[in-house]
């Protein structure tokens, strides 16, 4: 799906995901967790459609269940006993809620990464880290180039070996045999690749970077907004607004006007990509 946020500058993408993933990892407060989860889920559906729902139901709900069972089995603190297990251990409301929150956190972070994988493609990644790690970025790019070649060669090796009657050695043996042919073949090719790099001047000092991405004023404005959101949330953390205690009983900080401002701010931060996309959709539809 085409996304306005995905079309913006990679640095903005990174800033946003770093913020939401970091916050997603530290907040135990159910409201914050809920906001982040809803935003990640909604944006994920926007980006990946039906496949997102499949991921959530087939992969994430079982994980959540595992975490809740684990928590209920090992934690026996809390004041509200729900029932007592045959071995005499209590299962408490507090421990179940705590496990749910833990599981929700894992889920939320996972969902944010699903969005991240859809938005940050390899060339965006290389753009952001290419300057700091030129050699690493080039290595990644080269390896991405070689990978499909290796897969194709592997296929050809299997066929060729079968064609001279060498395809009957058992799967593991055949695989290892093919691997060893592939290594020899590809190492020889590496010399040609290195020559091609040398002949185009690789290794000269003062390498520059070609980029297809441009930093626009909109990117700057959005980055400032994200940073402002970050600052607000960090202020909330400092004021203890995001603390949540589950042992021995559930205790959340008292709600003040600041808490509500914080909720709204955090929601705006998390929903930013989706809001951006929807605004763009609206403009597009109106202009037709």
């Amino acid at each position: 799906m085409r996304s306005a946020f995905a079309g913006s500058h990679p640095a903005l993408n990174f800033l946003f995901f770093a913020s939401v993933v970091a916050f997603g990892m530290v907040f135990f407060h159910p409201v914050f967790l809920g906001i982040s989860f809803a935003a990640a889920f909604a944006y994920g559906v926007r980006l990946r459609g039906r496949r997102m729902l499949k991921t959530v139901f087939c992969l994430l709900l079982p994980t959540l269940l595992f975490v809740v069972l684990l928590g209920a089995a090992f934690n026996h603190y809390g004041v509200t006993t729900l029932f007592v297990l045959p071995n005499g251990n209590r299962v408490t409301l507090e421990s179940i809620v705590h496990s749910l929150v833990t599981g929700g956190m894992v889920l939320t972070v996972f969902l944010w990464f699903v969005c991240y994988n859809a938005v940050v493609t390899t060339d965006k990644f290389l753009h952001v880290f290419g300057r700091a790690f030129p050699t690493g970025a080039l290595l990644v790019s080269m390896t991405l180039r070689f990978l499909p070649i290796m897969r194709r060669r592997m296929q050809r090796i299997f066929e060729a070996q079968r064609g001279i009657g060498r395809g009957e050695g058992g799967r593991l043996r055949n695989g290892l045999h093919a691997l060893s042919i592939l290594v020899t073949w590809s190492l020889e090719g590496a010399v040609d690749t290195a020559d091609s790099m040398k002949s185009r001047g690789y290794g000269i000092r003062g390498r520059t970077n070609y980029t297809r991405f441009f930093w626009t004023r909109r990117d700057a404005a959005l980055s400032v907004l994200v940073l402002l959101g970050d600052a607000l949330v960090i202020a909330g953390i400092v004021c203890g607004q995001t603390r949540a205690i589950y042992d021995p009983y559930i205790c959340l900080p008292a709600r003040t006007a600041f808490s509500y401002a914080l909720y709204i701010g955090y929601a705006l931060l998390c929903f930013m990509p989706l809001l951006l996309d929807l605004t763009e959709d609206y403009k597009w539809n109106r202009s037709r």
Partner: protein
Amino acid sequence: MQRKPYLTVVSLTLSLAAVLVGAFLLRDRQYYLVSGVILLLACLPFAALFRKRRGKVRELVIVSVMAAIAVASRAAFYMLPTVKPLCAIAIITGLYLGEETGFMVGVLSMFLSNFLFGQGAWTPYQIFGMGFAVFVADVILRAGRFQSRRLVCAVVGALCCFAIYGLCADSCAVFAMAPDLSWKSVSAVLLTGLPFNASHAAVTGVVLFLTEKPIGEKLERMCVKYQLFQKGESE
């Protein structure tokens, strides 16, 4: 690519210790984030390897080729889905071309396979774990000159894969899922990962045992033919 391997081992171990200590010291379950951040910081000394390497262009291409092969090697066993020889190939490369080369191949191939199969909070743990496991295995094997002693290679490789990579990769799950860092709950999480780690380590061992010699010979021939990865030489 030959520098001081022992110094690197020490710094790797220290950073691993820092991760664990940092995680345990910081209560209130912030260790999920904190451990990730510390891990990224721990990778910084190694980032230098990928920053601006003064190496031969050919050596660079070979690292990339071996990493691509390591990732693609999954396709060689398309009929045996549990066989993932990535770790074994990185170890063999390091065995003949130097432990830092092995480390780079391990890190690069893990990074790429994370890119292909989706990144997550586990990415830094897996990358770090793979690099570290390959590096330690190679340091041990090279220090003992165990090249072409394939049984030793297989055992050491499998152990490093199991203990180091398994622990690093699972620690992500521990930090994320364990209700607290008590021995009981941590071991419960680790136990669920045990069958997977054991099979991964076994595969690494078997692949090392069977391919250490044929692939090693090819890497060696390459080094001799084009005078690559020689000590104390740079362009």
